[in-house]
């Protein structure tokens, strides 16, 4: 089996401008992955599947990962004019790193199963952000095994796979609106569903009712 670096070289030689990057994995498992650009992902995936020597014909696992945006504080040295004198001042700068959603695929080769396999070939794709640009190309046309798994990613993470033949919710019901596997998902308050609220739940239910009476807005 080829290492991720060798795979990257093969892809770059065959498909120039594919926009594939290596994402290294510091863990002892050393399962490094390839980051695909969303415009060329299907072409690269088909190439990996149909390549004679690689023949990655078996997509074992497909899943999503949520990476929310986070605030990073950095200390920067800035030259400033302080009382007419140029001095170097340390400033803490806060910036928000944008978050993204990620789809991860684990590939194996059934055709070359007899060969020593070091581990899976890992492909990743990332969305532009977590709110409105959550489209990724579907790899179901390449590997049918992604069909239910991409539906699950859509259901639980909210990644919209373009080109998927039947993109519906799979585990949650159709009318459900949220995506429960996201990191910022908040469990629903259960007083709405409790037939006989009591104690803590009753207090929250009454507070909710009072809020509705004041604002005149039903939640």
């Amino acid at each position, binding site marked *: 089996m080829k290492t991720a670096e060798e795979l990257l070289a093969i892809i770059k030689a065959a498909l120039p401008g594919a926009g594939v990057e290596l994402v290294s994995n510091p863990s002892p498992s050393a399962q490094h992955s390839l980051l695909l650009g969303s415009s060329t992902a299907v072409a690269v995936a088909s190439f990996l599947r149909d390549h004679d020597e690689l023949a990655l*014909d078996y997509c*074992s*696992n497909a899943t999503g990962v949520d990476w929310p945006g986070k605030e990073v504080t950095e200390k920067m040295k800035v030259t400033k004019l302080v009382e007419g004198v140029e001095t170097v001042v340390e400033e803490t700068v806060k910036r928000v790193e944008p978050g993204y959603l990620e789809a991860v695929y684990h590939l*194996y080769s059934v055709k070359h199963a007899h060969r020593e396999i070091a581990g899976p070939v890992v492909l990743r794709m990332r969305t532009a952000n977590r709110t409105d640009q959550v489209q990724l190309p579907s790899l179901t046309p390449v590997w049918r*095994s992604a*069909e239910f798994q991409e539906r699950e990613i859509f259901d639980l993470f909210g990644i919209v796979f373009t080109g998927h033949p039947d993109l519906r919710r799979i*585990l949650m019901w*159709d009318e459900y609106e949220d995506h*429960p596997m996201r990191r910022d998902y908040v469990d629903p308050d259960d007083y709405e569903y409790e037939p006989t609220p009591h104690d803590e739940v009753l207090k929250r239910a009454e507070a909710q009712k009072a809020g509705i009476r004041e604002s005149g807005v039903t939640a």
Partner: protein
Amino acid sequence: MSSPGFKTYRPPVMEVSEEGDELLEVAMGPHHPSTHGVFRMDVALDGERVVKLKPVFGYLHRNHEKIAEKASYLASMPYTDRLDYFCSLTNNWAYALAVEKLAGLEVPERAEYIRVITAELTRIQNHASAIGFLMQEMGASGTPLMYAFREREKILDLFEELTGSRMMCNYMRFGGCRVELPVGWLNKVRVIVDGLPRFIDETEALLTGNEILMARSQGVGILKPDLAINAGVSGVMLRCTGVNYDIRKVDHYGIYDRFKFRVPLGDHGDIYDRYMLRVLEMRESVEILKQALKDVPAGPIMDPKSKIRGFRPKPGEAYGRIEAPKGELGFYLISDGSPNPYRYRVRPPSLINLTILEDMCLGQNVADVVLIFGSVDIVLGEVDR
């Protein structure tokens, strides 16, 4: 929160086939006795012929993955028992294997032997019950299933003595096993393993040449190898099409390369092949058990480096998989250096083996849908998670 089934229920709609005949839409499930739990198939029928089949999941969904991400690594171990509750020990092994890859832990020799012995016992009782359930659905009510359960009972007694629990074993740990074998346990296993070939012969004498079984299962629910590979089908379902892919042989995980065993392969990819493969796999498992029981070494059962308290793998990710009785069971973990996994994913063989359910059922009689579904061998606890 109302149940998902109630909200998405639509009254049957009359559709029209290509020939202009009216189609009947039937909801098989969620409480159909053959669905092994709560699972629904929306089937459109032209007479008795299936023209469309859409599986509906989620009745047992409890978001296992989210719960595991809120708990520490070890706290998810007992919860993996509940995925495929027939095979808790192989679930434990798959999860332990993924964490061992993530944290770089070694497993002592004795623990590897115990893992192989418990996993192969699990495989035998799973395949025996799977055959029993399939026969139950075929109309052989009682006898084959009860024979299988009689054997399963003996194996569950062994598990109870070893782990304290019959089905929810929670036995493996990262870098080994939880407790040492009870005194005389291996001898009890030897006695039961020596009796297993007689049970398999008995099952075969009852079923393999049975005319009704052959008439109802041969040439029904055929799966083609190309589609099976492309759809990520694994386990018996993949091998019944003739594809030689057993993760015990491919990945060399554990100590499986020390044992001599064969991988049975099917030829036609129909229900009968799947039945036959399960019988043959039980025989091979008995062979593995006999070899493993011969030389269980003495020594520790835990890697001394592995920590129970304050277990924090270094940041990174790992995917580990094993050949569970139902297919390829994988766990994908991402660590951010905290005591909880950042991402915890189960690759459920039962769910992915259902991807091709519609392809197998199209053009078949509605009565055969029950058999085709039964021959996939799923557990809803794993499908819905």
